[in-house]
């Protein structure tokens, strides 16, 4: 499989080549290769524990690959100096699963935070920018609330406003739909689609909420056991549907991924009568 069709007319935003990542003795990725086309939403899906969040941290340079290479915007992330890495991150937003708002600040100051840290803009202008970002996520009126007063969905919307505060070229979304009620979920889905389309951003979305993800993705990458199992547009992936893919997409409890934790046959266990005591 070669680069996806979107990247033919444009350089890919993220390129990953034969990447391996090990954490202690555990191998998270082995021989992982994929590309993220510019200006599109790429969704990375896979069962829990396949290292989806780890992938985002590798892209953001918070973790270094054990081997293999990873480029963002043509820069090899693991080889950047701290300063260059920080400059790259200013062009990158990240939406954390819990929002990760700074608990010392209220909503307004949280969104203003990257602007105050990285620009010398006058306070008046910062106020305008922050109100614009908050208006975009529908929380302009909630600017004086503290993070502890926000619901999970609201916190994520504020975090999204903060992530786009510096007008990045790419946003990494870590499980943006986890644990939300249907209305809030709909709001977040709409917001992600709208911000990405209007601002022409590259989005990398990590999730296992199949329906929502399929609705907004241009490209889907399925991960399992440290490598890419399938990738392509939503329709392509659906159409191909290997047994594993269709089990995952339809959420069937049993199939190539077994319901039972692997072990000795049930019958032997019942009749054998031996139990190792610990």
């Amino acid at each position, binding site marked *: 499989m070669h680069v996806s069709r979107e990247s033919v007319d444009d350089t890919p935003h993220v390129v990953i080549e034969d990447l391996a990542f090990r954490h202690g003795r555990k191998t998270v990725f082995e021989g992982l290769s994929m590309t993220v086309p510019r200006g599109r939403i790429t969704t990375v899906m896979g069962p829990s524990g396949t290292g989806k969040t780890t992938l985002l*941290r590798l892209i*953001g340079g*918070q973790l270094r690959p054990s081997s293999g290479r990873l480029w963002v915007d043509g820069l090899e992330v693991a080889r950047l100096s*701290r300063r260059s890495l*920080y*400059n790259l*991150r*200013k062009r*990158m*937003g*990240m939406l*954390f*699963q*819990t929002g*990760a*708002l*700074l*608990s010392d600040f209220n909503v307004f100051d949280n969104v203003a*935070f*990257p602007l105050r*840290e*990285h620009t010398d803009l006058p306070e008046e202008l910062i106020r305008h920018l922050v109100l614009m970002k908050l208006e975009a996520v529908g929380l302009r009126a909630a600017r004086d609330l503290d993070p502890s007063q926000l619901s999970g969905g609201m916190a994520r919307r504020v*975090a999204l406003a*903060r992530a786009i505060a510096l007008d990045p070229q790419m946003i*990494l979304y870590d499980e943006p739909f986890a644990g939300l009620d249907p209305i809030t979920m709909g709001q977040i889905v709409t917001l992600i689609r709208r911000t990405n389309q209007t601002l022409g951003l590259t989005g990398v979305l990590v999730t296992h909420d199949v329906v929502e993800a399929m609705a907004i993705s241009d490209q889907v990458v399925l991960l399992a056991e440290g490598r890419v199992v399938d990738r392509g547009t939503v329709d392509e992936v659906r159409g191909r549907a290997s047994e594993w893919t269709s089990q995952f997409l339809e959420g069937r409890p049993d199939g190539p991924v077994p319901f039972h934790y692997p072990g000795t046959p049930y019958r032997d266990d019942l009749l054998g009568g031996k139990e190792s005591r610990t």
Partner: protein
Amino acid sequence: MIDFLAGLGRAGLGWFAVLGRASMFLGRVLLSQDAVLRRFSLTVAELYSVGVRSLLIIVVSGLFVGMVLGYQGYITLVNFGAAEALGGVVALSLVRELGPVVTALLFAGRAGSALTAEIGLMKATEQLSALEMMAVDPYRRVFAPRFFAGFVSMPLLAALFSAVGVIGGYLVGVGLLGVDSGSYFSQMQAVTDWREDVVSGVIKSVVFGFVVTWIAVFQGVDAEPTSEGISRATTQTVVVSALAVLGLDFILTGLMFGDL
């Protein structure tokens, strides 16, 4: 037996690993100290939360410790007809030992545990990660000002503790037990040496401040990012700090006053 030895080895290696991480952490925090001046407003905020908010416990404890010293000193000294020497006893005990040590223990309990919990919580809620991803260095933004604030506050609090303790001793000794006010202070002046006693005490409190803050901030950063992890780290801060303070006090006392 082999299991025991293996366990012992593992624990030992674990300790060295922690020590290594703690040292690397300290190195980076010290290298980031220029942020303390550049972002002075952040440092002031931390001085307030670490230092000023520990004032109450330090002042009240200092007063009571001084009062108890006044009592106990008087009871012993009066047997030898030397009750007038009370001022010297109170001041020496406070300035040399109790001031730095008790302040450090209280400081670990009040400010140290708060630092650990705060930083641990920032880690568990991904705030530290978020700072990094916003291209803001947590070492400069979060750790350096906190470390500096703890390091500066601790000796000041210890000095305050000793001063209030002297007043406590005065209240009991002079006010309650009838020691002469003039001799309380003149004795104090006569036996307390600036270099031998006061400077030694200040050095101790500086060392304790450094160590306790280091332990507290590092435990927060190194905490497992879960609720249990944070509570364990907070306990660890108090326990490890207390042991470190008492152990170091022994060594420092030996170096300063004995011929160790």
